[in-house]
């Protein structure tokens, strides 16, 4: 096994074992922190599919996360206030709804965004995300910019998401599944075309690939996965607000991917770990933690080629 492979295993093992240990030894806060981390890591993994492997710098990924969370919150809201049946709180309804809503949003926006390149792509993905942001702000029924309290978490027969350990467990398993899924996709024939299109789209077109369609499919898969992460995030915070979809949130996700190492399996997870842990530690020392935080992140991006995962082994692993 490669060094990178061992690092991946070690990171995932620590991430699976440490937080429950903290919880069981009377430090529930750290489990909370880890749950948020793991959920954001899923979103980062999904972003890595298009950003890292597809070369599509999407600056609107938080919109999918937010939409996913609203797909949990809105049915729960109607269940409580407008008499929707118990089905509206079922996990089997809400989670697929989150995935589906985001897939549709990704398809519709992707059709337009993917017609553009480079900086224009960045700007237009951001623009679509901001449109959703202002749309939600304008809907008073769902709390507008005050946000929406999710009164009940997604209901499953076999798992109780009100139990922090079980919620963490679901998030953790989901992260592993999403990592495996992205890895399979990337190494498949579809993934080879996606990566080829990142390296040289003209060549791929000459070979006979319709690059646009391949990118669109990847964009939809990525958006749907981020929507799933959003549904988990809604269940974790039990509160959602448009702020969750703000462009700065998209920037954070992008940062996790680049910091950890784009187009590597473990990179986005490493990025999420470092991001969340640093944010936590530094804010203990000073309320002006953004400054050292920013400087540290800049140092990594400037001096470590290929992100943190790039320090171990070659980029292809």
């Amino acid at each position, binding site marked *: 096994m490669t060094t990178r492979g061992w690092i991946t295993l070690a990171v995932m093992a620590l991430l699976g074992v440490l937080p429950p240990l903290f919880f069981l030894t009377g430090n529930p806060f750290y489990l909370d922190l880890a749950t948020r981390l793991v959920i954001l890591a899923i979103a980062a993994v999904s972003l890595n599919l298009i950003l890292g492997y597809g070369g599509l710098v999407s600056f609107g990924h938080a919109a999918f996360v937010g939409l996913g969370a609203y797909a949990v919150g809105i049915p729960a809201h109607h269940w409580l206030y407008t008499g929707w049946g118990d089905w509206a709180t079922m996990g089997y309804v809400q989670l697929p709804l989150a995935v589906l809503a985001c897939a549709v949003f990704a398809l519709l926006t992707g059709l337009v965004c993917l017609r553009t390149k480079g900086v224009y792509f960045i700007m237009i993905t951001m623009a679509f995300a901001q449109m959703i942001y202002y749309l939600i702000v304008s809907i008073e029924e769902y709390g507008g910019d005050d946000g929406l309290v999710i009164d009940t978490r997604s209901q499953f027969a076999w798992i109780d998401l009100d139990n922090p350990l079980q919620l963490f467990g679901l998030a953790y398993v989901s992260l592993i599944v999403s990592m495996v899924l992205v890895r*399979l996709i990337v190494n*498949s024939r579809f*993934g080879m075309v996606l990566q080829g299109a990142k390296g040289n789209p*003209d060549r791929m077109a000459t070979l006979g690939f319709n*690059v646009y369609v391949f990118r669109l499919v990847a964009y939809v898969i990525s958006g749907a996965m981020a929507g799933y992460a959003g549904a988990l995030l809604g269940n974790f915070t039990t509160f959602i607000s448009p702020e969750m979809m703000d462009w700065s949130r998209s920037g954070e996700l992008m940062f996790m991917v680049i910091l950890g190492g784009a187009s590597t399996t473990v990179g986005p997870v490493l990025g999420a770990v470092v991001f969340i842990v640093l944010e936590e530690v530094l804010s203990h020392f000073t309320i002006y933690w953004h400054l050292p935080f920013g400087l540290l992140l800049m140092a990594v991006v400037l001096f470590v080629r290929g992100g943190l995962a790039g320090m171990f082994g070659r980029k*292809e692993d």
Partner: protein
Amino acid sequence: MSAVLQIDGLNKSFGGIKATDNLNLSVQKGELHAVIGPNGAGKTTMISQLCGSQRPDTGRILYAGRDITTLPPHKRAHLGITRSYQITSLIMEMSVIDNVALALQARDGHSFRFLRPARSLSHLRDKAMDLLGKVDLTAKAEHRTKALSHGEHRRMEIAIALASDAELMLLDEPMAGLGSHESMQMVELLRGIKGQHTILLIEHDMEAVFALADRISVLVYGHIIATGTPDEIRGNEAVQHAYLGEE
């Protein structure tokens, strides 16, 4: 003989510059047809229009009798047209064999497959290895493309063109930047595939062109001024005046 490629009255301008000026050309099935011309004659612009990455202002391109003037590049590829690039255009971050395997996969037609590892598909890998053998790159198969020399990149271009098994190969200066030894290797390589595919060769290297071509067309200021066998072109006064004499 029948014309595989027929170009009728093609025009293309960039601002005030006429890169292609009423260009007429017919390429016969199975021949190696070379296009020569001084720098800036519009050779690459012509290829770009043939493969579809640029749209002509006016005129028609017929491929096997079918009008392909407005088809996008990937559709032309499906019809059997492939091109190589004057400036090496490979996927630098990928391994050598992955580059060739992708070209084979394009023809294979099963690219919306999401789970099975592409590198475990022996029908693609073995064929890719075969092609790398033809261009003498077997030993470098697993290397990252970026790490190869310019001459090796040029040979990869040929392997990829071969992988598409195209009826019509548009080769844009395959000898560009090669040393004399590498050029000779390339001539031998092209001699080996000549006859199996129709080849439209754009090339600066006169020695190579006259050694390989069945017919030669001379392009000057976006216009074909003469077409003929190598001997006819050598003896053509207009050509000598416009091009060969100035060398």
